[in-house]
């Protein structure tokens, strides 16, 4: 017994000693875990630290530490002049932020949910997105609009819509949808550094999820290119293209499909506008089958755009019609059982992939 106690005390004291290089060598490839929340918070912190023109604006971002705690600690660090709690007037504070961006400061506007961005959509589209073109390049608008997008859990129709397709249809905007912590850090940093307006669509249900991050991702200069998708899982039988939370579902579907001998390639879109058409087409030319997955309403959605791109560029390579998995064509119901039926589930993706392979789905 004393031996065990002595052993535990030794372990404790070893933990207090800074690790020697030899110890580090065996753990140097082990990834640290980071939540999306921390990834976003650290990205904001680092960009604000590097550039004093970057400031935050939104409801409850300061004293409340952020409605979802994404901006935690930033008010204390940067002060109320750079972390502004606003009154509840999305049109008001978004308009003010866009005007500020005309003069070269870099606002990061938080919408408590992108549903509330509809109150400010005139500013996002008309005042921000179109200005660089309308002014013939004289005025650029280095602004980021960020916040949770899409369905949460039991929040009803007015809090659950996905706005990816709406914003992605507008020239002049960039639209990003991170999935993992690496995406969240890299893409938010890229968005803040970008000279154009960027819509950054997060997901409330992913904020608490942890993902492994390498040392490279943790470095303050880490940045991901806008307009490039990522192949999360290589495969050869069917391509599954998804964004945000649905990437996780697509990966789970791929595991299920593997047991049935179908090797799925999962693409994390990351960037909805510009869409990485070349990567998606290259993948479909390899697999000949495509399933698109999104939580949003089906009509005029991201899946529809991807399908059009494939038909335009890779039609001869398709061995089956494109399958489009999307949310149900109804305002999000409130009751839990109805809500579950209104958003795609892993089984829906599995069945769609099997249909493209002409397998029985029963």
């Amino acid at each position, binding site marked *: 017994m004393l031996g065990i106690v002595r052993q535990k005390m030794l372990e404790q004291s070893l933990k207090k000693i800074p690790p020697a290089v030899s110890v580090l060598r065996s753990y140097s490839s082990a990834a640290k875990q980071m939540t999306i929340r921390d990834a976003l918070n650290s990205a904001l912190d680092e960009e604000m630290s590097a550039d004093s023109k970057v400031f935050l604006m939104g409801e409850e971002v300061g*004293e409340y530490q952020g409605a979802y705690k994404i901006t935690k600690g930033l008010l204390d660090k940067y002060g109320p002049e750079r972390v502004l709690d606003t009154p509840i007037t999305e049109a008001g504070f978004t308009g003010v932020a866009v005007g500020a961006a005309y003069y070269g400061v870099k606002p990061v506007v938080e919408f408590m949910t992108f549903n509330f961005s509809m109150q400010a959509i005139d500013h996002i589209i008309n005042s921000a997105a179109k200005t660089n073109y309308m002014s013939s390049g004289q005025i650029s608008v280095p602004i980021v609009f960020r916040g949770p997008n899409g369905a949460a859990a039991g929040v009803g129709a007015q809090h659950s819509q996905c706005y990816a397709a709406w914003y992605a249809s507008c020239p002049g905007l960039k639209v990003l949808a991170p999935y993992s912590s690496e995406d969240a850090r890299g893409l938010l940093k890229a968005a803040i550094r970008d000279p154009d307006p960027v819509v950054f669509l997060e997901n409330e249900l992913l904020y608490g999820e942890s993902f492994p991050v390498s040392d490279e991702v943790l470095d303050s200069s880490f940045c991901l290119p806008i307009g490039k998708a990522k192949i999360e899982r290589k495969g050869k039988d069917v391509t599954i293209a998804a964004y945000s939370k649905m990437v996780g579902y697509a990966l789970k579907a791929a595991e299920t499909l593997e047991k049935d001998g179908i090797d799925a390639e999962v693409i994390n879109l990351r960037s909805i506008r510009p869409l990485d058409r070349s990567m998606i087409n290259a993948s479909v030319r390899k697999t000949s089958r495509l399933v698109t997955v999104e939580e949003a309403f089906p009509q005029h959605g991201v899946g529809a755009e991807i399908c059009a791109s494939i038909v335009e560029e890779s039609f001869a390579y398709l061995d089956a019609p494109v399958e489009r998995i999307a949310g149900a064509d109804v305002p999000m119901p*409130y009751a839990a059982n109805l809500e579950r039926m209104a958003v795609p589930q892993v089984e829906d993706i599995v069945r769609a992939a099997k249909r493209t392979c002409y397998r029985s789905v029963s």
Partner: protein
Amino acid sequence: MVLGRAFEDMCAQMYYKMFSFVHFYNGQEVVSTGFIKLLKQQDSIVSTYRDPIHALSKGVFTRAVSKLFSKTTGCCRGQGGSMHMFSWEHNVLGGFAFISERIFVATDAAFTSEYKREVLKEVDCDHVTLAFSRDETCNNGQFFGCLNMAALWKLPIVFVIENNLWAIGMSHLRATSDPQIYKKGPAFEMSGVHVDEMDVLKVKEVAKEAIDRVRRGEGPTLVECETYRFRGHSLADPDELRDPAEKVH
């Protein structure tokens, strides 16, 4: 009033069975009782997301309860949710999540009442609409658009502002250049009245005056009721920014 408080307290206990947002009204019951109990069946109310007690006061009882549990027996059959109480029978035109959207809906309901009387010649139509809203709405541009139209067209509407001094974690005083909301009425040639007691009889007196004025065709009123919410914004709110002494009751 007592029913409202008991209802909210029971909701708090049953929260985890509800699977929803729940935004409590504890402390503000005087406002809904003081105003809504003076209405007729055909009068309309439009509310905030803190709306179950408004619906209750208007007569939507068991169906409101069912709604919170997402049951098909609820007033919206599980489709709307706690924030969106609708009942055509009781003229409850919804709770709305967006703070300024509801003001428009209410103004439209009042407009329709006026239209029925003036154009469709339904001379007995003296329906009144109560637009419930809160302090944070009064910093929103759309609110001012509605005040203007309501006064301009003498719409049968009473804007009831439940000033509970807090929007989630943002104090009304930090968000508003002039925190006295009732003063915004006269800027639009509309009476602005302030009631600063959590006293149901005083609120009722003010409410009666405002509703009677509207029924006589003398135009809308903006009533600011200073009240307080004893619980957080919702059960998910850690409510760390308010002084605990404020919340004692």
